[in-house]
């Protein structure tokens, strides 16, 4: 166990945005239970509430071929009841908790913000589904959640304009049998094929104390919190940390062009996507700054050129998505009525070529750093935001208190590094070009 010296994050913001950041951090203490559960405690007494967040280091990355969408389906099962807490939603509702869970490419989290006096109930519930999910898992629960997740697929992808483009992005950058194939949501067929035995095996493999972190942020007495954590999580059995997934990142070796016919799109959209990096890779910070310079704000290069000057687009953005098995860097531009993807592409390529040739200006880099650091620090205004940040750093860097180093990482990015990132991360000859075109039935024409 170690306790970090605590400047409050109040200081973080002011120092972070000055050029001379000192050593800001979120105050916290951490320790590990004998069974391997890592516990992070951070007091915040502004209001009588506690944010409880459990991260399991399992996501789409851990799925086997033919099991797309499985990690996310499993997340749903964690709300279906465990041996001693058969109706977790009812329990949480009765104490007025705000709760949800989420799955991404590399991790799954379960979180609730509860009244401070109800911390025991939150820990009772989270420990029960960590240790006692299987005894009550049955076919009926599985069938219901397979349907719910299939509905989610339709609502969020199939039945939403441009929803299909993201699936094509995953399928092209991460072809079968890569576990990112079909993104996190997966395919309806594969979700429907999941069996009870698959669920049981997945739980035994990944849902272990040693593969999880528990963060508590809020209005608690750390002595009481420690006793409660020991009481509820201490008896859970020990199992070794599961091996990390190791899958080579497929690399684009040429320009790949795909056209998507989207019946719910009326306006063409361009996406240009490059192979990206892993979280905290050496190029990540410069890549993030690059994404802001390119398309993060109203003064960004792409916004100025495509939206303000040429008026070809209504909207542009750039995103440096870093993922555990290798991420992607995307530029997305949605046309203005009457303009085409070909026009957008020509202009995006011109902007990229200038950036590769001349690099960004000092002013652009400074502004982008402020944007990134400001966003990082503002996310900590909420106890739930702090809990997620502590867990993020714990998983990705091993140090929950990495915030100050993370800010320093961005502050240290130079103009030269961003220029270099533009050349190495966005090669013109190894890019996926997605062209979403309005497709299917002509709107309203079918009677």
């Amino acid at each position, binding site marked *: 166990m170690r306790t970090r010296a605590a400047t409050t994050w*109040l200081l973080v*913001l*002011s120092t972070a945005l000055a050029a001379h950041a000192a050593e800001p951090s979120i105050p916290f203490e951490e320790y590990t239970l004998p069974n391997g559960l890592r516990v992070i405690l951070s007091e915040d007494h502004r209001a009588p*509430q506690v944010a409880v967040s459990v991260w399991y280091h399992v996501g789409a*990355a851990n799925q*086997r071929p033919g099991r797309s969408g499985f990690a996310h389906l499993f*997340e749903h099962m964690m*709300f279906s009841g465990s*041996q*001693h807490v058969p109706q977790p*939603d*009812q329990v949480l*509702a*009765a104490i*007025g*908790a*705000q709760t*949800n*869970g*989420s799955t*991404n490419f590399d991790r799954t989290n379960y979180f609730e913000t509860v*009244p*401070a*006096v109800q911390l*025991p109930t939150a820990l*009772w519930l989270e420990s029960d589904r960590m*240790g006692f999910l299987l005894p009550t898992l049955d076919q009926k629960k599985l069938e219901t959640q397979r349907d*719910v997740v299939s*509905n989610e697929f339709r*609502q969020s992808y199939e039945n939403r304009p441009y929803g299909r483009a993201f699936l094509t992005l995953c399928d092209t950058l991460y072809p079968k*049998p*890569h*576990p990112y194939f079909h*993104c996190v949501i997966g395919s309806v067929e594969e979700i429907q094929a999941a069996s009870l035995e698959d669920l049981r095996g997945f739980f035994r*493999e990944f849902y*272990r104390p040693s593969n999880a972190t528990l963060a508590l942020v809020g209005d608690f007495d750390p002595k*009481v919190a420690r006793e409660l954590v020991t009481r509820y999580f201490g008896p859970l*059995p020990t199992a070794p940390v599961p*091996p990390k997934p190791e*899958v*080579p*990142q*497929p690399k684009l070796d040429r320009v790949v062009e795909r056209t998507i016919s989207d019946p719910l799109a009326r*306006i063409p959209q361009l996406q240009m996507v490059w192979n990206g990096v892993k979280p905290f890779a050496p190029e990540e910070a410069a890549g993030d700054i690059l994404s802001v310079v390119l398309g993060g704000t*109203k*003064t960004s290069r792409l916004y100025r050129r495509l*939206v*303000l000057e040429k*008026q070809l687009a209504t*909207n542009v953005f750039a995103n440096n998505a870093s993922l555990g098995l290798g991420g992607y860097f995307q530029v997305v531009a*949605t046309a203005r*009525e009457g303009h085409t993807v070909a026009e957008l592409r020509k202009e995006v390529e011109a902007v990229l070529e200038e950036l590769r040739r001349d690099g960004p200006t000092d002013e652009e880099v400074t*502004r982008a750093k402020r*944007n990134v650091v400001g966003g990082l620090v503002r996310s900590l205004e*909420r106890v739930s935001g702090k809990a997620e940040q502590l867990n993020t750093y714990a998983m990705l860097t091993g140090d929950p208190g990495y915030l100050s180093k993370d800010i320093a990482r961005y502050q240290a990015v130079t103009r030269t590094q961003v220029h270099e990132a533009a050349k190495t991360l966005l090669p013109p000859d190894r890019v996926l070009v997605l062209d979403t075109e309005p497709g*299917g039935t002509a*709107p*309203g*024409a*079918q009677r």
Partner: protein
Amino acid sequence: MRTPFRRAPLVSLLLLACAGPQPAPTPPVAAAAPPPADAWRDAEPAPLPSAPPFSAPVAVVHTLPNRLGVLLRENHAVPVVVVELAIKTGVDGDPPGKAGLADFLGGVLDEGTKSRTSDQVAAQLEDLAAFLSISTTLDGVRLHLNCLSDTLVPALDLLADVALNPAFRTGDVERVRGQILTSLQQRRVSPGALAGDEVARLLYGPKHPWGQPAGGTPESVRAIRRADLVRFHDTYFRPNNALLSVSGDFEPSRILPLLSERFGAWRPRSLPPSRLPGFPKDAPRTVVTVDLPEGTQSQLALATRTLPATHPDALALSTANAALGGLFTSRLNHQLREVKGWTYGLFSSVAFNKRTGVFQVRGSVQAPRTVDSLKEVEAVMGQYATGDLTDRELAQAKEAILQSLPSALETNDAVASTFVTLSVLGRPLDYYATLPRRLGALTRDEVARVAKANLEPGRIPVVVVGPRKDQEGLAALKLGPVVDRTAEARGQVPPSPAQVPAAR
């Protein structure tokens, strides 16, 4: 940046207005010993000894000599100040034939002032690490500034300049117009947007500005002239029609002078008398359909006007709604999602604006289950409207509302906006501070009575946006006459004369 896939759609707050690589190797399954006997886990633990209750922030009120109301709340927890300047006229200020004007104004306001270009406004805000967002609502235009406390002065300068001295340069106006026209095209194939527009028409009527499609129609947006923007601004952007709400880390002795220096010379002027048409009278129930053959889900909505925010039963209604469909565990979502598996989530809400309340059920369901789902919603609501609310449901609803407050009022952004909302709705500024007491006093009988009086589905119009082939059987449900609005909603017929502006 990572994309989460949440297990459940986010439910809106109850009260605040609302090839090649190898697959991963299979790790060995550890032969872990079964957990020890844990009978003690069967009982839910008792809560900890009580902590001090949450006390919701209450605004301190000032009025500047030009009648500009100022709402203040000091909070030194973080070095951030949020300033929201609210204009108390929004879409309700759209003249006939100019639907979308207030939204247009909101879109173009920060695109340049008399002394700053669009790009300069954006660059100066970014240099301060400040955010300014402008949103147009049915009853207001809100300019929301979030800045660091040590940049409050220059950030306030920018806010005041954007609010008071917009330039509406032709180039910027035309650029924004093109963006709006593009987004209106996309709205015509977006299930949620199509349903929202039909709901608005049913709630407020085709002649009321609030009954128009959100953002206007292509025809009305093309008809908006620069002079209309100038006139809207000149008419409604007046201190006597505005509020300044400030929450954060400011110096109490300095804040009023800072605000006065920037907003004190703003001249009041009386507003023109409102000539808004009345809302439509309760008509027999209809089922409005929009065919979206491309869809694989159907977007369902039931919506009606209900009690206004200041009605004595408004809190009981919000509580009744929580148990019916406001929470993940409430009846509608439980039945349609957890029992039937037909949706990712189906919820109801009660929201308020300055003239009325709106009760609404919304959800996206499997297209082949469109009719079945409506039937189920009808059954759940019909049962609920008999007044069979249970004590357990009531307790959950109350806790949900009560315990969401610390989180809902956690940030300065939320507090500044909430002050404005309370004021616009005509609720007392200590509304949330007194909420625990008022909520505690609500009895089951009272909430059941309000549910019976207001949530009976038999008179609530229905909107269905989805593939027509899955709408067969709708008429057989006998909910009311089925009205097909596909052509109008999807922009296939010329607008009715009421929507065409007179030549000027």
